[in-house]
């Protein structure tokens, strides 16, 4: 039953993660702004300041407020913390999911409070050498939850300890997202669903992280999420390698091999994150997954692609293009493409508004079916 729960929650999408497109602002590594070197989770002080100045607009600030003052106010209590060892963050993210928008018969609207959590990080030593970081929050009821079934209402999606031996190298142990692929925010993205690196796929393990001017490497050995039953825990190894090219872009590849008592999963992908400057960026990922059930009843290779473009016409405002490709079984010719424009607006730090349209089209020899539509409105608050 828990397997079904995890399968269902795949389709609920969206939770606060790092925004890989901020390479367009000149930040190729997630470590610049997050405590977790692979991105996602709590922002560090620098990340808060960047989100307040480079990323968000100045809607509420008078002209007399300079960027330094705005950065100074980016802390949890709207000021620079008085101590250096504790950092907190509170998040809320909710969205309105509209299926078949505009259809008088089939339109379905659902409001999903996707994220309500508290994040805490304890940090010690020079350059925050030693950190203890974690979160705890209320999770939404599964979108297609089974009536009468009990689901965990509260859970932690990350809790780990990290130590950086040198500025280039650190080890992290605990519950974290797997080091794999581009961590786009869309949890329903094929590039996150297929390799099982979406919002409930965190795993206990040890992550090694290496970073220098040209290379960034994450290697992750994991034993599954200890909150799950033993037989469901996906144990294995994943890795991501990124290389900086032409000084501002990144190209990389990822690999993952994991298994539990029911499933063996092998996935690999290659990706690029291109800095188009002044906040605009282009992300692309192409990968395959091979899934084999333990009794070899089913063996399937799937292929996925992601192309996500961000154009920033003015500060705080991004226009998105999301193109996703899915070939569920490479032995067949059919595939589908999910395509859609979106807008993302940060009128001020701590507030994100977003709207996306998803148009899904199936391509199958000898077949032509009507496109399906999905509309998302999203509100994200963080303090």
């Amino acid at each position, binding site marked *: 039953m828990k397997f079904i729960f995890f399968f269902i929650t795949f389709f609920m999408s969206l939770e606060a993660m790092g925004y890989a497109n901020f390479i367009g602002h000149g930040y190729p590594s997630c470590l610049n702004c997050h405590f977790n070197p692979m991105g996602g989770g709590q922002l560090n002080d620098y990340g808060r300041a960047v989100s307040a100045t480079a990323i968000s607009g100045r809607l509420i600030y008078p002209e007399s407020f300079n960027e330094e003052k705005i950065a100074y106010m980016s802390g949890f209590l709207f000021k620079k913390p008085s101590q250096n060892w504790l950092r907190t963050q509170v998040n809320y993210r909710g969205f309105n999911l509209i299926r078949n928008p505009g259809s008088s018969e089939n339109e379905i609207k659902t409001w999903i409070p996707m994220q309500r959590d508290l994040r805490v990080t304890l940090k010690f030593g020079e350059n925050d050498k030693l950190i203890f970081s974690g979160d705890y929050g209320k999770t939404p009821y599964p979108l297609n939850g089974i009536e009468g079934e009990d689901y965990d209402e509260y859970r932690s999606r990350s809790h780990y300890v990290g130590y950086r031996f040198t500025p280039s190298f650190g080890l992290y142990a605990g519950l974290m997202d797997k080091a794999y692929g581009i961590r786009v925010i869309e949890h329903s993205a094929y590039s996150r669903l297929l390799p099982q690196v979406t919002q409930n796929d965190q795993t206990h393990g040890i992550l090694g992280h290496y970073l220098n001017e040209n290379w960034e490497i994450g290697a992750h050995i994991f034993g599954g999420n200890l909150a799950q039953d033993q037989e469901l825990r996906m144990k294995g190894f994943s890795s991501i390698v990124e290389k900086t090219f032409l000084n501002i872009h990144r190209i990389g590849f990822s690999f993952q091999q994991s298994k539990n008592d029911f499933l063996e999963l092998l996935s690999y992908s290659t990706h690029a994150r*291109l800095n*188009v*400057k*002044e*906040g*605009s960026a*282009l992300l692309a990922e192409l990968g395959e997954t091979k899934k084999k059930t333990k009794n070899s009843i089913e063996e399937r290779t799937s292929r996925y692609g992601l*192309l996500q*473009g961000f*154009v*920033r*016409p003015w500060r705080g405002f991004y*226009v998105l*293009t999301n*193109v996703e490709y899915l070939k569920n079984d490479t032995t067949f010719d059919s595939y589908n*493409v999910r*395509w*859609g*424009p979106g807008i993302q607006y940060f009128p001020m730090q701590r507030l994100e508004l977003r709207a996306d349209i998803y*148009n899904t*089209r*199936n*391509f*199958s*020899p*000898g*077949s*032509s*079916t*009507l*496109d399906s539509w999905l509309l998302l409105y999203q509100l994200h608050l963080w303090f």
Partner: protein
Amino acid sequence: MVLRLFLLFFIFMKVGIALGDDIANEIITDYKQHNYAGVVSKFQLNRKREIFKSSEKILLITLKALEVKGLYEEAVNLMAVYLKTNYKKEHALILKAIKSGLDGKNESSKKQSALYFKIFWNIGKVILSMDRRDIKTEQYLKHFESFREILTFLEFREEKVDKFNDRVLEHLKYLDSKKYFLSKRFFLEYLTWQQKSVLTIGGEDHSLILTNRGVCIGGGMGYKNKFYHFFLDSCAVLAGGEIQSQNTIPIYQQSDISARGIKSSLGVGKVVSETGSEIGFKVPVLFISQDLTDPPANSLGCGGGCSVEDPSSFSFLTSIYSNWAFDNWYFQTEFGKFINKNDILWTLGLGYNF
């Protein structure tokens, strides 16, 4: 005779001075009442009078009034005349000292340096008030640079001079970026679109879904500056499609239906980065020739006659596009909706700007 002439000259001179005094008094009165328009008007009517060349007080008052009224060019002219009249020799010495590369800190009086600064400032204001770059801009820029050089030499208000100089140069950069130039490009797109058609069986209509995909090869031309891009592009469509009944009954299906045509678009985009990336709107017109085959007369249910309507040859769309530029190459996506229909077209393309 000489005496008479001398007397006449003396009388004229006295009258002139008296007139000058009157204007000076009026100007001072207007200034005290903050009547800057009055000061300007009196200056414009009497600009050749000696008083504007010799009185420092009147110069400063008139200058203030001209600045308040935004008449920077007149302010520059007024000060240039004043400089020429009162500091001709000193000015020549400074220019000579600059040429010889001497230390200039003590080369001029504070008043003279302040005058240079005022001229520099007003020339800058003239440039800042320009909304296009032309010959006149270049002339003022030449003078602006000369006075900046003098002020740097004199080490007078250096921080202010540098800051203002940066502001003027920034404005010139902005004027440059406003200039439109011809844009030309070549591109190759993958495109897919869906349209509806109708199968008529015995007078009853049934909806069909036609999904096309293919490529579009073409080019475009337009006018572009650092902020906007207005263009027309056109490409040849080489595509094919599948058609199927929307409902399971009746069954109608056809594969690999060739679609050939042209897609032309008028568009306007906002340039969002120094690399030339854009976001904008297009109004594409799609002309496609695609023939659907009627079901054979002996098909099930076609006894009373069956026919399939070809999709419309001309379609008008509205679309949004995003363009990510990397030097001359660019990547582009487009998401378009057929006007008055719920059908969608997407494109994904790669192009080169010449």
